């Protein structure tokens, strides 16, 4: 099936899902209630997952929904419930002028990056030549072959990392403040 003929559909999906993702992202930042932040993040994650499907990354999209929107967000909601949702964020400043300083620095960084992007003379991505959608059609097999051949060492390292993370989380959960 010629994928390039779906350009109109892709543009429509991009506009709708991009707006959804942006709305969710803004909701994460401006919500007072952490539960609402979590719901906004969930909307962003699902919208981005559909954008993965649009770009033929099927397996990554499925993993995004299962792992991120499923497991990670459940963990987030669990911890929010554990800590308590009714605690208002403290608004008073403990460091004077910290918002103004950080705001100025971040505006400077963004302006610098924008200037670099607009006026810098370099190309990160060479222009896409003839599109062969088969090569990036992210089926399980297409993703698994490089993962278990070229990147098998990184795969084993992530296994080790997950083991360490689980052990660390259990150790933290059993932590007790020493009696003095």
């Amino acid at each position, binding site marked *: 099936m010629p994928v390039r003929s779906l350009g109109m559909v892709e543009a429509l999906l991009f506009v709708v899902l991009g707006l959804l993702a942006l709305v969710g992202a803004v909701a994460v930042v401006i919500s007072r209630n952490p539960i609402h932040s979590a719901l906004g993040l969930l909307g962003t994650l699902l919208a981005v997952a559909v954008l993965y499907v649009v770009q033929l*990354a099927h397996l990554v999209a499925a993993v995004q929904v299962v792992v991120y929107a499923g497991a990670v967000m459940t963990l987030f909601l669990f911890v929010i419930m554990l800590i308590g949702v009714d605690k208002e964020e403290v608004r008073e400043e403990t460091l004077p002028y910290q918002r103004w300083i950080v705001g100025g620095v971040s505006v400077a960084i963004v302006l610098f990056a924008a200037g670099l992007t607009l006026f810098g003379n370099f190309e990160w991505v060479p222009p896409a030549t003839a599109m062969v959608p088969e090569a990036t059609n992210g089926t399980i097999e297409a993703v698994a072959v490089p993962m278990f051949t070229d990147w098998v060492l990184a795969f084993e390292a992530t296994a080790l990392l997950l083991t360490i993370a689980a052990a660390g989380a259990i150790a933290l959960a059993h932590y007790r403040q020493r009696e003095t």
Partner: protein
Amino acid sequence: MDVGWYMALAAALFFIGAIGLLVRRNALVMFMCIELMLNAVNLTLISAGRALNDINGQVAVFFILVVAAAEVVVGLAIIVAIFRVRASASVDELSELRG
């Protein structure tokens, strides 16, 4: 469709996440903003992988997903441990390590 649009969306998501990370004090919401930024990076990897016709972008996203999951597990455990001692999730009150 041009890959630049996806890059622009990812940049906007990353920027919103970064703003949230700087502005919010609640450690949980800061964590969510970090997840937002990681997702923006994943979107750039998928889009660049498609533009370059390279499947390795999707493989990289997998590794980022694993690292993010491990980060969430350890980070939330730390938040819960801090909350147990301090009864607060605000990062501004955590100043024991000051010199």
